[in-house]
Structure formats: structure tokens, C-alpha cells
């Protein structure tokens, strides 16, 4: 039997494959398709403290091997989540991660503070790519100081380990990752989506009602992988790789580069069984290559 478990120190995952926030609903949407217990874990849709209406449609644009979304983090807010969703999730034996959002630093802390009292959440993943309304729409992830500041605040209130999820829309991803680490983040996940746009040449309007959105999917994998590769060299906390993962091969690229786990995003839309297939195929890869523990692959890039 191949040991697919990965140990983060503060948590041990069954296997290194998680579902990414915003692409996996609140988890239950996938129960018709897969046994959620088989996942390394899943990250629920981004939660603000209050419910949010989200952006008007059109919210999605397909691009070559990619998807631009501008959902605008529509969501039910943390209270309704705790009331309606969390009770349904408690029965699952897998890591349940809440993706924490905020329009201000204080909102991040409020979400975490509220959830601290609720059972059934394993970890927090703070989504520092949320536009900060106070700071003119800039997001904390694009600046090392604001990254430090949000992470630090959240760590102070958090009763659970914290993953900081980075934005790829930066000059120097290592600098931001180091800030998050210094601020006490227990792990890093990257990447969130790339800021993108599409125009309808007939109407000459942006295809998205919001004009700009975030690009995900296979198109971005080479960029995400590069960032993970750069970041792992400098961090001593675990890194979770995200971006365009569709197959076991994609996932393995991230693990070999040094990610200790991966998140599967857009692929869940294309194939709701994608996460499980990737787990099975990683297992098969290990068998073929006589690897007994997935940990023996992580960070083995041979340069």
C-alpha cells in the first residue's frame, strides 16, 4: 500500500489533493459525484462576515484553455454558513478548510473569530486577494506590508492553523510569501487567479459585467508552477500548489517542485470527479515508479 498522506506538522492530510476555494461550492455540491471522505481536504467558497450579492452577470468567460471569472465572491456570510452548511460538513472525515475573506483587515479577523467557536473546521485559508474597499480596491496580497498586517492580525485571533493564499499578480512572489511566513502563517497556498479581461468585438463591451476578472485553468499552470518553484526555495513552512491542475501529471509537477499538497480548482467544473481521479492516478504513478510514500516525491526536482 502506498502511503499518500502528507504531514504539515499541524495537520496530517490523507493525501495531497484538496479542492480549491470557489470551485467546489460548499463541498456538498460534489457529493452526488464523489465520496468527499476520499479527499485530502477541501476549501469552501470564500466567506465574508456578511452575505454578499456578488457581481452582475456575465460572470464567466471561457478563454483558450482558461476561464475568467468575476463572481464577486457572492456568498451567504459566515453566520448562515455556520447554521446551514457546517452541520452538513461535520460528518465528513477530511480536512475542511474555510476560505476567509474581508473588505478590511478587521473583517478577516471577525470571520475567524466567529468560526473559532464552531466545530468542524480544520483550518483557515485567508484569501488576501480580496479587494480592500478602504484602500481603493487594492488587495493585501499585492504588497508585503499589507500581507504581513492581515496575516498577523488573523494569527492573533485564530484558534486554528492558518494558510495564507497568495495572489500571482505581483513582481516578486517570494517577497510576499516571506512576509506571510514572518507574520506567522502556518502554510502558504498559491496561486489565486490572474487578473484578466476579454472584450466582445461586436458590442465593443467587456465580456464581463465587472470588466476585469480572474483567469484560472490549464492556461495558467506554467506560471503557477514557476511561482511555487520560486517560493519553496525560500520558505520553511509548507506550500500548497494551485493553478490549472487537471491531471495527476499536473499535480505531480507541483509536488516535485516542492509543494506539499495541491488544490484542484477549475477542473472540478469540467469533471466533478477530477480530484478523485487525480488521487487514483497519483497512486498509480507511485506504483509504477516504485515510490512507497508520496512524501518521497515532494521537492525532488532534479535540476
Amino acid at each position, binding site marked *: 500500500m502506498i502511503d499518500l498522506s502528507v504531514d504539515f506538522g499541524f495537520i496530517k492530510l490523507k493525501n495531497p489533493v484538496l479542492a480549491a476555494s470557489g470551485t467546489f*461550492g460548499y463541498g456538498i455540491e460534489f457529493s*452526488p*459525484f464523489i465520496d468527499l471522505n476520499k479527499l485530502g481536504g477541501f476549501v469552501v467558497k470564500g466567506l465574508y462576515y456578511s452575505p454578499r450579492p456578488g457581481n*452582475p452577470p456575465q*460572470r464567466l468567460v471561457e478563454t483558450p484553455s482558461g476561464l475568467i471569472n468575476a463572481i464577486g465572491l*457572492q456568498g451567504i456570510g459566515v453566520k448562515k454558513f455556520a447554521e446551514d452548511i457546517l452541520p452538513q460538513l461535520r460528518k465528513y472525515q477530511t480536512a475542511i478548510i474555510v476560505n476567509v475573506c474581508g473588505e478590511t483587515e478587521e473583517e478577516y479577523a471577525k470571520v475567524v473569530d466567529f468560526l473559532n467557536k464552531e466545530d468542524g473546521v480544520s483550518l483557515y485559508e485567508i484569501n488576501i486577494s480580496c479587494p480592500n474597499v478602504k484602500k481603493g480596491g487594492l488587495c493585501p496580497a499585492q504588497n508585503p506590508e499589507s500581507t504581513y498586517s492581515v496575516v498577523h492580525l488573523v494569527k492573533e485571533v485564530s484558534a486554528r492553523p492558518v494558510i495564507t493564499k497568495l495572489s500571482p499578480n505581483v513582481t516578486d512572489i517570494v517577497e510576499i510569501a516571506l512576509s506571510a511566513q514572518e507574520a506567522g502563517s502556518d502554510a502558504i497556498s498559491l496561486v489565486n487567479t490572474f487578473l484578466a479581461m476579454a472584450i466582445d468585438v461586436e458590442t465593443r463591451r467587456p465580456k464581463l*459585467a465587472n470588466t476585469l476578472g480572474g483567469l484560472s*485553468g490549464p492556461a495558467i499552470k506554467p506560471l503557477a508552477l514557476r511561482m511555487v518553484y520560486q517560493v519553496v526555495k525560500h520558505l520553511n513552512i509548507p506550500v500548497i500548489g494551485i493553478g490549472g491542475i487537471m491531471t495527476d501529471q499536473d499535480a505531480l509537477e507541483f509536488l516535485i517542485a516542492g509543494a506539499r499538497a495541491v488544490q484542484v480548482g477549475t477542473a472540478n467544473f469540467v469533471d466533478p470527479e477530477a480530484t478523485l481521479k487525480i488521487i487514483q492516478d497519483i497512486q498509480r504513478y507511485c506504483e509504477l515508479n516504485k515510490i512507497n510514500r508520496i512524501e518521497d516525491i515532494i521537492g525532488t526536482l532534479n535540476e
Partner: protein
Amino acid sequence: MFDILKDPHALITHKEHWKDYYLFTLESPIIASRAQPGQFIMVRVSSLPYPLLRRPFSIHSVGGKKIEIFFQKSGVGTSLLSNKITGDFMDIIGPLGKGFSWSQHSKTQDIVLIGGGRGIAPLYFLAQKLHSVGAAPKIFYGGNTKDDIPLKEKFEQKGFEIYCSTDDGSFGFRGLITDCFKDQLKNLTPKQIFACGPEPMMKAIYQVAVRKGIPAEFSLESVMGCGFGACWGCVKKIKTKEGTEWIKICEEGPVFSSFEIVWEEQEK
């Protein structure tokens, strides 16, 4: 929602086409057994990363273990799909969404189904179902030219009364199907309307329906990321108890009633 199934091996047992319109028969027993008129499936058009997303298609009919889809070739996904042949498998997810709902009195009432272009797709299944409960819906079917109403015979063969219109007058009523329908209102007193087609068409029908106080349901379209409620991409503005909200049409729709839909210009 828990009746949704992914069937990666829906066998194409029959294929027909008229110019850009295609009719595929798919063997998918469980989906066939669960499907309701107005529901749809999500089809994987390619196993490659491009085109990436599945495509939504209404369930056009159900018979035994089989379902049909009827689609118009209009972009890269539908082009690839149109190249599939009998004997190929399709990877589909369904049945998805909430379909049409008709009253218990349908049997004895005038019921009107109005389809524009490929919008006719879900209405055949609905007509089948209404027929099976003893109702005799009247079909209004419009297109740009006579090439855009290829299913006319199919409805006729099943004995449905059908009114056709073409924008260019190449067949039937010359003009919009909504005008054709308004024209027939002198002879008809519909108690229920079901419509699917381009938004302006549906909006015009909505206005008639409201004016005449006829309950009406509409099947909406929207770009869908997943089709099963996970992406929040497919929303439309819908009236709820709390006011209006962006509602996922893949879960709560694609069919909504006159009273739920907020008809307005595409939000920008």
C-alpha cells in the same frame, strides 16, 4: 440535486441534421429515467483543455433508455460536437436544474408552447409529457428562415397543432413568432404558456402573458461554468422573498415563471 449523475459513456445511437441543427439520440438509462421537461445536461465536448468547459443542452426528448438533444452549431464547442458520429460516446452530466411545471387542469386547457430557433429544444419533451397526461398543447415555432424550423414535421407527426413563422416569410407566418402568437390569440384562450428562445422573444411573450394574466414559464440561458451549482457563474436576477437576488439558474432554473424573472437590459 442528489439525482444528478455523471455518465461518461452516453452512447450516440442516432444522429440527424438539417443545415446547422443537429439531433443526437443518446443512450443513458439513468438520466433518461430521471429527466423532467426543462431540465438539461452538461456535455463535455472535448477531452483536451480547449474548449475547457462543458456545454449545456436541454433534454429534447426521452424514450426508454434514451434521451435526445437538439442543438445548433454556433461556436467551437457545438462544432466539435457536431462532428461526433453514431457509436461515439459522450460524457454528460444530468439531469440538471428544475424544469417546467404545469397545472393539474392542463388536460382540459389550452396550453401554448413557444420556441424560437434552437429554443424549441426543451419544448418537445414538454409536449411529449403534456401529451402523455392527456393535454394537447399548441406549438408556436419561429425562425429566421425556413431552415431554422427543422423540427416542424417532428411535431406534426406526433399530431401536435403547430404554428410556424419565419422572419423572412420563407415559411408560415411572416414575422416574429411572438406576432404570430399574438395574432392567434383571437382564436385561443391559453391558460398556460411555456417559452424558450432569444431574450427579446421571451420578454415580448412575458408582456403579453402579464397583460392577459396568463401564467407563463420561461427557460433561460446563461454561461455556465459547472451546471450543478458549484461556480455561481450562471446567475440571473430573480425575485425572492427578500427582494431580488442573483440566483443560480442551473440549480433554481433554468425555468422560471413570469413572476420570478426580472426582465431588464443585460447588466453591465
